[in-house]
């Protein structure tokens, strides 16, 4: 635990001594970091280093082997099931492929969390879904089924759905993977604008350097050999000032 009193207030999510893995196989251990409120935070690292595994522990899908995941002052993994559900409503998640519910239209996908967790009437939910879809550039696609729109659009609907409940924290797993450079750029711009508009905290898992340098305020770099994080800070500054050869190699595409 850190001593500083207002540390807790500034951090949307705090991770303390987190170790994650599967059975006896520890993927990442002893992670300590704070995700500042309103920031765009990136978990980066080469493929297979355990980014998704760490993310699954943060969003409550995989119980960590040790450590705490704190939302404000509440430890997710110590909370009762009801408290966990309550915490889940305060964050949104966008999955790698969109993970849209294929039997529902795009607007129904975005509206489902609203109709399950608020007492709003159907017309208001529809208006909110239209707004969220317009925010990600999908005005007019409300009544399409996920199979009827492209992969990049599916991802954007995934973003809109993650934002449905106006969460305080939004998690993204590889948001720009599989997108062409232009769409990926557009998605980055959208995320920045959404963060500025909604004031939410965004946590991204990615290894796309262009995107990392464009939008990240803060980042951690996970290393598969070390099995823990080897650098923490603003990625542009890390690129310029880090003395660790592994960090420079990753951030300069091996050109260090």
């Amino acid at each position, binding site marked *: 635990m850190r001593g500083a009193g207002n540390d807790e207030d500034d951090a949307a999510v705090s991770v303390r001594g987190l170790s994650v893995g599967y059975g006896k196989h520890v993927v990442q251990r002893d992670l300590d970091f704070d995700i500042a409120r309103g920031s765009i935070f990136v978990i980066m690292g080469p493929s297979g280093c355990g980014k998704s595994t760490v993310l699954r522990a943060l969003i409550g899908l995989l119980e960590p082997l040790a450590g705490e995941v704190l939302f404000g002052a509440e430890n997710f993994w110590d909370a009762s099931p009801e408290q966990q559900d309550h915490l889940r409503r305060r964050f949104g998640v966008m999955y790698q492929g969109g993970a849209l519910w294929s*039997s529902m239209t795009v607007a129904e996908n975005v509206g489902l969390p609203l109709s399950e967790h608020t007492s709003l009437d159907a017309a208001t939910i529809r208006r909110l879904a239209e707004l969220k879809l*317009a925010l990600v*550039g999908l005005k007019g696609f409300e009544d399409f089924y*996920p*199979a009827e729109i492209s992969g990049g659009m599916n991802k954007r609907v995934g973003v809109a759905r993650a934002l449905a409940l*106006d969460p305080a924290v939004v998690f993204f797993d590889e948001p720009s993977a599989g997108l062409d450079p232009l769409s990926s750029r557009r998605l980055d711009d*959208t995320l920045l*604008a959404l963060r*500025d508009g909604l004031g939410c905290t965004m946590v991204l898992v990615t290894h796309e350097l262009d995107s990392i340098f464009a939008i990240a305020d803060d980042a951690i770099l996970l290393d598969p050999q070390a099995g823990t994080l080897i650098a923490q800070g603003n990625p542009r500054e890390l690129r310029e000032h880090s003395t660790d050869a592994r960090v420079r190699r990753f951030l300069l595409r091996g050109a260090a």
Partner: protein
Amino acid sequence: MSETTPAAAALTTRTDDTRLVVCPAGAWTLAATLPASPAALHAPEPAGVTRIAFDCTGLTAWDSRFVVFVRELEERCAAAGVALERDDLPQGVRRLLELADAAPERAAESPGGHERAFLREVGLQVIAFVRSAGELIEFTGAAAVAFGRLLRGRARFRVLDMLRIMQDVGAEALPIVSLISILVGLILAYIGSLQLSQFGADEYVANLVAIAMAREMAAMMTGIIMAGRTGAAFAAQLGTMTANEEIDALRTAAIPPMEFLVLPRLLALVLMLPLLTVYANLMGIVGGAVVGLLLLDIEPLQYLVQTRGAVDLGDFATGLIKAAAYGVIVAVSGCLRGMQCGRSAAAVGAATTSAVVTGIVFIVVCSATLTVVYQVLGI
């Protein structure tokens, strides 16, 4: 993110010459109950208002609920020809409104009719039935060609796959086939005995059960069980593979899915369904015997003699030919629907349902056809 209840949302307006100033106050959030909008907002025009402005000094919290409110107001203003000034809205709200206004990168064309009128639906169903008969025959033909290649040793076919599928569709189906067949035997014998005992012809229950099982019921019940158990599994398996582009990957690797995936399943079912039917015959006759021995007091030996007198190998053969045909139908409808599957989880569900329905419908059609054929041939 404090959990204290924020001030309730309120809405007032004041006129400032030709400007109407809207003053939202309190928390305008998803959890809030919004106030009814003041009359002035419903009819800005008659009051001589030409502009609407905001005063958000009283607004303590907002989220997309407030943005939706502003957007709705903006739409109404646009329709009434009144200008709306965004300048005094919170910075974040302005940013979101601009983002939402940005032209979508591609205009949506209509998603195509999802609404269905009754007559249209009936017509579509009829067309779908005729089409599925054609598809089934075409697919069977393609499978036969693949089988021809297999006989000439030129098919990409893995015997191990087939053996594994045979175990899955054969041995592992024994419990359910036993249960259903014994029950069918029991029911036939019981219903039959109610009628036959009126004529004092109790021992003919054995004949009834044996003939019914051998010629019709064993094959039919096993076919239907297999349609539900195995046809559905084939459709779900191949459907998921289609959805994941695994089938496309086979095609581009120059491995015909017809030989690699369909043929082992087809052969496994065509071999195992008649074998299961033999077993179902035995179980059905055992079920009939239970009623005969316990309820009707027929001697075991007499029941056996009566049964042997009722059916000959020809009767069993007619049933087994049907069983083989049902095997083709179940395998083909399962694989066909799987390979026609769309690219989503919902499509896999639809493919599975469709495989079972197609399987059962064509089992019944085939059973009727073969019965007539047997009649004509005098078998």
